[in-house]
């Protein structure tokens, strides 16, 4: 299972099914008068074909291990979602502070002092954006 080529093929098949099956529910129409479902169905059919070919091909080419490191991407996504949540319920300044402190876990070293400086700098930039460029940021 830990083969990049095989996983790639399976992912492609999964994506094609995720789009292709719902497309069946939309009106297909006919070629001269295409409905909403026809084009996505054709495209996902083609993608399915490519996915199957990739899976078959994976049996014949050399296996390459899949290198998926969940830690950093999880930290980054958590800081993004935390930023959005905090900006929604409190304000964006808190969101920025959280994002800096949370994402810093993914860095090669962790320093509270540095995080404070970065957060302060970014908040200043955000205020500059709000005041000078007229962006509508809910900073407070």
């Amino acid at each position: 299972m830990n083969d990049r080529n095989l996983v790639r093929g399976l992912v492609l098949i999964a994506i094609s099914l995720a789009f292709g099956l719902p497309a069946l529910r939309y009106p297909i129409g006919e070629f001269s008068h295409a409905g909403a479902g026809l084009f996505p169905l054709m495209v996902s059919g083609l993608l399915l074909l490519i996915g199957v070919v990739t899976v078959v091909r994976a049996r014949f080419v050399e296996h390459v291990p899949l290198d998926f490191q969940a830690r950093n991407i999880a930290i980054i996504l958590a800081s993004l979602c935390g930023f959005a949540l905090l900006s929604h319920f409190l304000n964006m300044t808190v969101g920025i502070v959280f994002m800096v402190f949370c994402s810093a876990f993914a860095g090669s070293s962790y320093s509270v002092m540095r995080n404070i400086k970065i957060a302060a700098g970014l908040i200043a930039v955000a205020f500059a954006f709000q005041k000078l460029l007229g962006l509508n940021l809910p900073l407070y």
Partner: protein
Amino acid sequence: MMDVLHNLAFGFEHALTWQNLMFCALGCTVGTLVGLLPGLGPLATISLLLPLTYSIPTTGALIMLAGIYYGAQYGDSVSAITMKIPHASSIVACIDGYQMTLKGKTGLALFTAGVSSFIGGTVAIVVLSFFAPMLGEVAFLFGPADYCALMLVGFVCVSFVTTGSLLNGMAMCLIGVLLGQIGTDVTSGVQRFTMDLPFLADGVGLVSVALGCFGIAEITKNLDNREERSPFNGKINLIPTWAEFKRIIPSALRGSVIGSFLGILPGGGPVIAQFAAYAVDKKVSKYKHEIGSGAIEGVAGQAAADEAAARTSFIPLMSIGIPENAVMALMMAAFIIKGIQPGPNMIAGHPELFWGLVASMWIGNCFLITLNVPLVRYWLSVFKIPYNVLFPAILFFCCIGTFSVNNNLDDIYITAAFGLGGYLFMRLDLDAAPLMLGFILGPMMEENFRRALLISRGSFLAFMKRPISGTLLALIGVFVIWQLVSFFLQARKKPAPKADADRPEAALVPE
């Protein structure tokens, strides 16, 4: 001839206003910066700045975005030469450029790259101002079937050029097309793939896709690598001798011509142009025996081609209305946001925009050569910023950029989702650039496809019968068959083909 000069003069009138000069300078500076730094390519930066351009006048906004794109081509050769940090479009500069640094000729390499880029840019602008209006007239002959076929050619070329594997690249294009289907169908009003979520009714935001797949995924990749770069501290002596200077010119001119030509072709652009120029220099240059071990020609040709192709790739976008690579697809989105449909009517309908943009490219060229040759050592201090400081800042800009498109926090979740998707794709060795192209061209392709079938009453023969689309489809057919045959031949010759064969740049860059 007189026409073009007259038009260019008109363009300079527009490009030389204070405001546009400022936007041009800003674009070039930001472009150089993102070219230098890893983690934010021109694609992510342009999509970041898209929402900021809502309040800027059209010409200024496009001048700035274009400046970012071609400015990044200058900047990335600097980081390639001094530190062997390759970005998407400076892989070739790492070969001879870095060898020259090892020999202590950094200044000469940087000077060569800067001057050659300048020459390349200038040649490309001449090509641009002659060819774009001409091609625009041809584009009037195109029907829906032809547009469809042309987009398919673009998909095939981009897939092959950027990923080196037709299969992977096509898969990404198709995924992009499918993502573009999310939202309300324009013809029938049916909501497709929205999962009944109201914020998906207008489709997935372009900025979310671009920042997720390029910004977030790239940051995570750099974090995974965990390598701290040591900043460049060597001496830089910029002034070349006359003998050295004379060696730059022929190679740069060769590169400019190759780059200008390859930039126009679908799927073309800086990357392929560099490789081609480097290969040609290796064949015909007077100093070909030195190339690969730090020759001036190895830097000059590819830098000129890089810059020339970056500019001529605007031609298909502005005269036919079909972007030929992912960055151009984003530029097209920028045009459309500003209420301008790129295509054969654009040059006649908005002459101040087209000629202003062309003229600004030359002004940008002057800015860039000043920024990148005399001031280059200041830029290198950018690398003293540790990545631990840089990446929260990039993340912040991604958030602000996504948010300010619609002033909607929900978009940040979509960006995060695409970040995960982009990271997964990267780990699966799928390049996200074709996805971007598919995403932007997908809706256009569907519209033209449906229109073509409507006209032909459902007969696919229409695609074959029209001379333009027939030829293009035949080309695709030949290409696909050639790929199949070469795969089977390879598989028969070697039971286990080496993994490197999939990526042309891996095979070309010496360690």
